[in-house]
């Protein structure tokens, strides 16, 4: 009886942990299979333990090239989307102007549209313009779909900001530039960082929009997609595992820094 009562009280916890397990199961499988030594071209069944792939992560033709291309695109897309998005977010929160509603809708729509629709329509634009598909078209597309997410993240932060802090700075004879650099920007920084991080992750991982607009350029997700047809090298699992570890460490570090900041007296 006691067990049933315990079970009932902790039902939510058990169900939640099951979901967490469901979420992490593929990551565990990816990690385990990064130590596999597959017999055929596909790395879908366990054969024997081996460190080969970890010793030689770039041993597959073209894989590390696609990885570095994805990193470059993600970096530039993050910079572009963060700058443009932060400007829009400040304009939307700080100023009253006509067509504010229309602007908000235009920001919202890309997030509410299936990726395949955006991808296909962008391709029709590029085809009509006769643009050469490749690095630049992918970068343009990535900045486009990351923009809305950055605006959302920055807007949330700027909205919760006390405008009196800036007024106080100005009362203390800080010029507009000084106020912005010393007061506004530091307060908005976590929102901007969150937006940038999101943009990087979205761009780095994007497959659908890239697949339509990349031409013969191969980003890392496209390499993985191709390998699903041709045969998956173990190195893909190594990269997947490494990315997961880096992400966990990055997010943990971010949280620790955030916690320490919050502990300081306001």
């Amino acid at each position: 009886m006691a067990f049933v009562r315990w079970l009932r009280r902790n039902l939510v916890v058990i169900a939640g942990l099951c979901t967490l397990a469901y979420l992490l199961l593929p990551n565990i499988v990816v990690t385990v299979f990064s130590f596999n030594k597959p017999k055929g071209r596909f790395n879908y069944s366990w054969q024997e333990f081996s460190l080969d792939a970890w010793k030689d992560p770039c041993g597959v033709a073209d894989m590390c090239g696609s990885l570095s291309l994805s990193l470059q695109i993600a970096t530039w897309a993050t910079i572009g989307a963060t700058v443009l998005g932060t400007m829009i977010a400040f304009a939307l929160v700080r100023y009253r102007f006509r067509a504010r509603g229309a602007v908000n809708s235009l920001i919202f729509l890309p997030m509410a549209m299936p990726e395949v629709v955006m991808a296909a329509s962008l391709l029709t634009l590029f085809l009509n313009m006769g643009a050469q598909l490749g690095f630049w078209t992918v970068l343009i597309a990535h900045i486009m779909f990351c923009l809305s997410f950055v605006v959302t993240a920055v807007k949330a932060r700027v909205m919760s900001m006390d405008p009196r802090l800036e007024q106080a700075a100005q009362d203390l004879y800080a010029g507009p530039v000084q106020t912005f650099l010393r007061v506004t920007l530091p307060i908005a920084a976590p929102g901007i960082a969150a937006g940038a991080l999101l943009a990087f992750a979205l761009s780095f991982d994007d497959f659908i929009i890239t697949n339509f607009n990349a031409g013969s350029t191969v980003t890392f997700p496209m390499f993985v997609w191709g390998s699903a047809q041709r045969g998956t090298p173990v190195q893909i699992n190594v990269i997947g595992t490494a990315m997961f570890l880096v992400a966990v460490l990055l997010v943990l570090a971010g949280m620790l820094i955030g916690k320490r900041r919050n502990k300081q007296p306001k």
Partner: protein
Amino acid sequence: MTTTLTEAPPAKDPEDPAPAPRKPRKRGRLVPYWLLLPGLLWLVVFFALPLVYQASTSVQTGSLEEGFKVTWHFATYWDALTDYWPQFLRSVLYAGAATVLCLLLGYPLAYLIAFRAGRWRGIILVLVIAPFFTSFLIRTLAWKTILADGGPVVGALNSLHVLDVTSWLGVTAGDRVLATPLAVICGLTYNFLPFMILPLYTSLERIDGRLHEAAGDLYAKPSTTFRKVTLPLSMPGVVSGTLLTFIPAAGDYVNADLLGSTDTRMVGNVIQTQFLRVLDYPTAAALSFILMAAILFMVTFYIRKSGTEDLV
């Protein structure tokens, strides 16, 4: 359509939104427009304009060799619908099933993080977010290993007679899961689950814990408290989570391609094939327009029904 889906605070503007400019000059009034100009230009040229181009493509006829011309050939839409309605139907059904599963699976986890996790909260949140940063394609491929024929998962489902039930429901075939609708729905659920959990968590986290105590003081059973207090207050999260899951799931073609078979093709697969392999641009554009219109229609209807219009 003012605020967006996931952000935490409701559209509550500070009393004085613009910091009083010291010298109101004419130049200052143009500032918001200069701030908006580059970003909006980008969205207009690379998001709005392409949709116009696509609309025009969908009413063109011709071939790749001779070139396409606008002939106002609306029959493309009719042909696309009659040819591909099973794929449309499948997209809605699979995405709907995945959304319901995401809600059922995601709610306990969001609740756990918001109210029961204590000092584990940060860690669990990291574990929910971290998969975002690892390639979703690699993780989706991992499901091929997990659901492999004769693997432990399929074996367990078989011995528990779950597969008998799902075969009867028509979502699996015989004693395999891969290449069946169940595998695709499983992949969709998995891939979009974080999009359900995070909005649920933000809306649950905002609930004042004292409300639960008050409900308990008034002799409400835990289940009553949940039904009358927690669930209604988390509705904004439920609505935005549902949208964030359903919309991308309906347009997805990766899961259907990697985990499904030719019998599980969704409308995204058709658009992709028509655009990139068959090169039948008018049909592909028409399909993509129908998908967009259908989703906008369903989303508007859903938001009306769920009564949280101020949310979007």
